[in-house]
């Protein structure tokens, strides 16, 4: 495993004072915290910064880390010397840092227990931790509801104590009408209980995969509906795909581009259900051959007084 230079990660010298460490961490945490950051890899960056701070802010851990760093002497590949930490007894509150996975390097030095959940002492028979995960479903899963198999990646320790990603599949009933960004609770599917305590719950944050036809805003569903110029001008009845299947839609005569046609209650199901909107866009037929060009010229001569840019004209 790679040796982690925690000082470098916080941009500090080894002689940094506790105040300097705190200042450096806070500055980087504000820059990379996933809740406030716009950096593309904010979460990974924040994890490293938080881990460095968790070690360096604690005098005991920092002393242990410095000892290892001196013995290690700058090679890239790192193995903790056997029994290296027998001289230290860590009294600190083990899990008071951010609730994040720690690197193998951290765990090799400070143990799995130190990488646990934040919070103080756990009673012997406490309930298991609640877990959180984000999952992506199709819009149609919400429109129709019903059973879906969802795959989650779960970090699990193997017999050698190495962290591995295990694929966990859950059969979940997707409630009809669930919206993008809402959460599902699966009772008892979180972390195992301690002693006789009950298992924790699993929370799934639901997101919709982008759909090739539909856009979703809350409960409402939108589709872009191209119409021919004469359909927009004269009115027409057109067939439109909706989540429940095709619907006939009346395009009123004189519809401008961008007009929203609403089908009430045809959005996501629920009480109340959302609406379905077709957003008109006027599609021009190509003026590819002589006949088509003649048709456009005839149109132009029929509308000699028409100025599409009337609204742009400045008053003298």
């Amino acid at each position: 495993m790679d040796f982690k230079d925690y000082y470098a990660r916080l941009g500090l010298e080894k002689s940094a004072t506790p105040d300097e460490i705190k200042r450096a961490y806070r500055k980087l945490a504000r820059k990379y915290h996933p809740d406030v950051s716009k950096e593309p890899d904010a979460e990974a960056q924040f994890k490293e910064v938080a881990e460095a701070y968790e070690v360096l802010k604690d005098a005991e851990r920092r002393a242990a880390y410095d000892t290892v760093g001196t013995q290690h002497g700058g090679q890239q590949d790192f193995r903790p010397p056997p029994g290296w930490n027998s001289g230290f007894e860590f009294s600190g509150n083990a899990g008071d840092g951010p609730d994040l996975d720690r690197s193998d390097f951290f765990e090799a030095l400070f143990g799995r227990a130190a990488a646990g959940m934040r919070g103080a002492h756990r009673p012997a028979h406490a309930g298991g931790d609640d877990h959180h995960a984000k999952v992506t479903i199709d819009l149609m899963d919400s429109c129709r509801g019903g059973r879906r198999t969802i795959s989650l990646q779960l970090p699990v320790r193997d017999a050698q104590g190495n962290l591995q990603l295990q694929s966990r599949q859950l059969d979940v009933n997707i409630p009809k009408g669930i919206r993008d960004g809402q959460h599902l609770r699966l009772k008892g599917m979180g972390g195992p209980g301690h002693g006789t305590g009950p298992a924790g719950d699993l929370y799934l944050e639901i997101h919709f995969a982008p759909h090739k036809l539909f856009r979703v805003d809350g409960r409402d569903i939108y589709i872009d509906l191209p119409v021919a110029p004469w359909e927009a001008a004269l009115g027409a009845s057109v067939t439109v795909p909706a989540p429940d299947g095709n619907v006939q839609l009346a395009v009123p005569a004189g519809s401008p581009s961008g007009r929203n046609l609403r089908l009430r209650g045809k959005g996501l199901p629920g009480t109340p259900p959302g609406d379905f909107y077709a957003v008109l866009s006027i599609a021009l037929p190509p003026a590819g051959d002589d006949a088509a060009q003649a048709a456009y010229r005839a149109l132009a001569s029929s509308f000699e007084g028409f100025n599409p840019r009337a609204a742009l004209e400045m008053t003298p």
Partner: protein
Amino acid sequence: MNFVEGPFTHAVIVETDLQFSLPELGRACGVEVTLLESLVHEGVLTPHGDHPTQWRFEGSVLPRARTAARLLLDLELGVAGTALVLELLDEIDTLKSQLRRFRG
């Protein structure tokens, strides 16, 4: 290794079908209840009920409570600072969605 846990799991929508007691919300956010109490006193979270033992939180507060807990612990913000950051994040969300609508 793959395994399917069966027969199948009943899921409820947190935002519409659930309410949390104080300890339940603490567990769901992975934080001590005292931290949530301080967020209530700052007006970040508004439960129903008078006393902490009777508090019921709407399911829809879960994302906000988790974000608040992360900001408090990770950025070492005070409760008032957390409340301010949350309000600014809300405002950014509103502006972003207005911008999306504006751009079509």
